[in-house]
């Protein structure tokens, strides 16, 4: 047995019943079998042979091929995306029909609603980042289009370096200059953004900042596995889609009607529910878990569980209530969010 031993090859799944529960862990809970099986050969994983796993089940603990020295960073990839390439891409290969079918949500021309309901695609904000010949970036916000062909023509004409998607507004966003503050967001998918930059304190593969490699990319698999279960089982969301961001992370789009109609406070509450922060917080937002925890510690208040009764309140309301009124009757023991935050209706 050498210190540089290969990871033991387990033929079956890790037995989830052996994972210790919150009560005392006993030696019987630990399976000794894993320690005795050793694989001295490298097994390449062929994705096509891997059976699909239940999202909530434990994955098979299979040996992972040794990491290659591939990395993705802005310095090692092609230095720039040229305008001619982008033009060809937008002319032939960008899937305008996907964007239109998705973001119209069944409304608009040829819809089953007969044109009576709001054309959601028309009310959607698109934003373009365009690079002019002097290499300056021009940012065009509040663009909106009535149809797929209008959208395609605009994109092919502008050839943006980047396209961003915003909310569905009360009016077509192109009317921003006339409406001003009367233009308000009414719906938006619940989105998640996970970047490997936020894992720099625990990445020991040599990558930092925008650099990624096959080793640290696995954090994204962990993220998708955990969040899919939470979003499906705890919130009942079904229309989830993850996208590769192109460089160092993933974006999640949750498109259920209940998710789209979440208010800003509701989104904050859901995002905080999905957040568990035991590491040093770099965010200065003040609304993150550790910010609230520090606020609680300063106020030296202890609260007991509020329970899942009719006493529901939003995260925003509770925070302002605690800070302003110092409620002594409400007793929740909170060390971190999301232990006992109960969400408002959504």
């Amino acid at each position, binding site marked *: 047995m050498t210190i540089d031993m290969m990871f033991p090859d387990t033929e079956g799944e890790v037995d989830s019943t052996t994972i210790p529960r919150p009560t005392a862990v006993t030696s019987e809970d630990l399976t000794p079998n894993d320690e005795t099986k050793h694989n001295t050969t490298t097994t390449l994983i062929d994705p096509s042979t891997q059976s699909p796993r239940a999202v909530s089940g434990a994955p098979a603990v299979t040996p992972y091929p040794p990491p290659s020295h591939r990395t993705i960073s802005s310095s090692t990839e092609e230095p720039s995306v040229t305008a001619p390439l982008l033009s060809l891409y937008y002319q032939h290969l960008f899937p305008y029909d996907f*964007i239109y079918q998705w973001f119209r949500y069944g409304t608009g021309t040829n819809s089953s609603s007969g044109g009576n309901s709001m054309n959601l695609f028309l009310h959607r904000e698109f934003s373009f980042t365009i690079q002019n010949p002097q290499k300056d970036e021009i940012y065009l916000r509040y663009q909106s289009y009535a149809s797929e062909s209008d959208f395609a023509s605009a994109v092919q004409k502008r050839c943006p370096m980047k396209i961003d998607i915003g909310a569905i507004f009360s009016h077509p966003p192109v009317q921003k200059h006339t409406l001003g503050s009367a233009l308000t967001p009414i719906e938006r998918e619940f989105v998640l953004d996970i970047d490997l930059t936020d894992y720099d304190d625990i990445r020991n593969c040599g990558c930092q900042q925008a650099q990624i490699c096959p080793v640290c990319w696995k954090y994204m698999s962990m993220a998708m596995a955990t969040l899919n279960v939470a979003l499906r089982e705890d919130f009942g969301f079904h229309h989830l889609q993850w996208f590769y961001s192109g460089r160092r992370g993933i974006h999640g789009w949750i498109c259920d009607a209940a998710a789209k109609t979440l208010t800003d406070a509701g989104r904050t509450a859901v995002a905080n529910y999905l957040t568990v922060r035991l590491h040093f917080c770099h965010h200065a937002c003040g609304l993150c878990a550790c910010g609230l925890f520090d606020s609680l510690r300063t106020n030296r208040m202890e609260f007991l569980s509020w329970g899942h009764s009719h006493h529901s309140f939003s995260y925003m309301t509770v925070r302002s209530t605690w800070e302003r009124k110092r409620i002594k009757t409400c007793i929740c023991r909170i060390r971190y969010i999301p232990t006992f935050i109960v969400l408002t209706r959504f």
Partner: protein
Amino acid sequence: MHLSYPLHPYIHRAYEILEPFFIRDVIVSKKNGGHGLLYSEDQYMQVLNLLPECAAVIREMLQESWSTKKSTPLERWNDLKKHISFFIKQGNFSSGRKNSTEERSKKVAKTLHVNYEDEKNRQLLEIFCVEIVIRYTYPRIDINVSKMRNHLLKSPFCVHPKTGRVCVPISKTEHRTFDPFAVPTISQIVQEYFAATKAAAPDSSEKGDDEMVISKDPASKQSCRHKWEHTSLYPYYTKFQNEFLIPLTKESLSYQRQNVTDRKDAVNMDF
């Protein structure tokens, strides 16, 4: 900062999901595709130093054992769990330090005839392994992107300006096997597209780029609706259509139809 005790069911479920990843992808050595958390000494000392003071004896024992005896990261993880469980059973959680800051909790503990400090230490030890797994694997979302409705997010299917890679959808069957290095770049797919065009109709190459001249052979991809079907984007986009877009569109259309039916019924007073 610590997790609260008892563990919230959400945390416990996250731990059950993440522990296999932790064992496979975090504690093993870099050669085996991990971060070496329980492989190299400087890494495992970071973990042992997170043990509460009352368990200093575990830290010393394991440090000595792991530095002298050769063991795999999995054996070390199991060792750590075993030692913590035995330590909890023997019941001595005194850290020898006085904690005088939380008077109210002490009064509560006193009424329950429990040594507050010992009880706190026991709780920290019970959830220690869960904390380690959560600390090193739990997803870190950028909350600023999620909390505001009018926050812009990069559109799917765009090209990243710095890397040239396309923002492709990740199929739900490939969450664990998705390879960002295999994602096609813009130059690659443009080349593939024009190679396919040329191969499909080699004698019509002067016709210009905006005509996709498909081979006259019906067995070929003459029925391709999309030009990306001739590129490496094909597997990503077809799965996206089947797994996400079609179900979403169906549900949206039926919702709209239901809305129209309800409105008509309301007008006709037909309930």
